[in-house]
C-alpha cells in the first residue's frame, strides 16, 4: 500500500474512533447539552489532531531542543517561585467564604495553570517541534469527554 494511502486510512480510523468515543460520552451522561457539546468539540479537535499529525508534510523548520532555547536554560527558579505562589493561593482560595462553585472553578483554573507551567517549562514542551505539541495534546479531548460525561451524570 502506498504510504500516503496508509496514512489516510489510519487517519480515518482515528477519526471514527474518536467520534465513537464522543458518542459514547454522550450516551453515558444521558441527553444533556454540555456532554453533547463536549463530545462534539472533543471529537472535532481529536479529528483535527489526528489528521494534522498524520498528513505527510515537510519537516518542521523550527529548531528543537537546546537549539530552540539558543543554548540557554529557561528561568527554572522563577517557574518554581510561581508554582510556590500559586500553591499558596490555591490553599487560601479553598478556605475562602465563597460559593462552592466559585471555589471549584478558581481551583481548577489554578491547577491547570500550574500543570501547564510544569509541562511547558520543566518538560520542555515549549521548545519541542510542533508535532510534539499535537502528540502531547492528543489525550486531552478524550480526557475532557470523560470528565464532562461523569460531571453531568447526576443531572
Amino acid at each position, binding site marked *: 500500500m502506498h504510504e500516503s494511502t496508509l496514512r489516510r486510512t489510519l487517519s480515518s480510523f482515528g477519526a471514527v474512533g474518536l467520534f465513537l468515543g464522543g458518542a459514547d460520552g454522550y450516551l453515558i451522561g444521558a441527553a444533556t447539552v454540555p456532554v453533547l457539546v463536549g463530545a462534539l468539540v472533543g471529537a472535532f479537535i481529536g479529528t483535527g489532531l489526528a489528521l494534522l499529525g498524520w498528513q505527510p508534510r515537510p519537516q518542521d523548520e523550527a529548531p528543537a531542543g537546546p537549539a530552540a532555547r539558543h543554548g540557554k536554560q529557561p528561568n527554572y527558579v522563577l*517557574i518554581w517561585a510561581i508554582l510556590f505562589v500559586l500553591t499558596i493561593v490555591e490553599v487560601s482560595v479553598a478556605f475562602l467564604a465563597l460559593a462552592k462553585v466559585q471555589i471549584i472553578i478558581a481551583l481548577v483554573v489554578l*491547577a491547570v495553570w500550574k500543570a501547564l507551567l510544569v509541562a511547558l517549562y*520543566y*518538560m520542555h514542551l515549549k521548545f519541542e517541534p510542533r508535532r510534539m505539541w499535537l502528540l502531547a495534546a492528543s489525550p*486531552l479531548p478524550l*480526557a475532557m469527554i*470523560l470528565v464532562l460525561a461523569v460531571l453531568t*451524570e447526576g443531572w
Partner: protein
Amino acid sequence: MSQSATMAMPAGRTMPGMGVYNLKLGMWVFLLSEVMFFTGLIGAYIILRFAHPDAYTDPGTVLNVPLTAFNTFVLICSSVTMVKAFAAIEAGDQRGLRLWLLATVALGAFFLSVQGIEYFKLASEGFVPIASLYAAEGAPLYGATFYTLTGFHGAHVTIGVLCMSFTSFKAFRGAYTQADHGGVEIMGLYWHFVDLVWIILFTIVYLI
C-alpha cells in the same frame, strides 16, 4: 546501552517523524497513556463524589491540608532539582548532575515518608479504605477513593525514586555526557509528569 545510537542527533537537525529522538518519543507516548489512566481514576472519583456528596467532608476536616501543602511544595522543589540536573549535564557539569540527582532522590523519598506518616495518622483516626473499620467523619467511600487516588500516585513516585536511584548510579559511573544524556531527560519527563499529576490530585482530593 544503545542510547548513544538513538541520541545521535546533530544539533540543529531533526530526525524524521516527530523530530525528537526515540527514547523521548517513547516516554511521551507512555506518559500520554498515563494521562488516560489517571483520567479514569479521576472520572471515577468525580462520579462517586457527585453521587454521594454526604460521604465527603469539607476540606481540612479529615485530611491534613497544611501538611500536604508542604508535601506538594517538596514535590515541586524536587522538580526544580531534577531540571537543574538536566541543565547541569547539558552544560557538561558532571558534579552538578550528580548532586542535583541525589537531591531529587532525597526529596522524592522525603515526599513518600511524609505521605507514609500522613497515612499512618489518618488510619489511626479511623480513616481507612475498609468499610467495616471506618470510623472517621464522612463515609467509607471517602477513604476508598482517597487511598486509591493518592496510593496510585504514591506508587508512581516510588517507581520514580527507584528509577532515579538507578539514573544517579549511572551518573556516578559517568554514563551521561554533554552530547549524550537522553536518560536524564526522559527520567526528568517522568518525574515532572508525576509532579503534574500531584498538582491536579492535591487540588481535587484535598482542596475541593
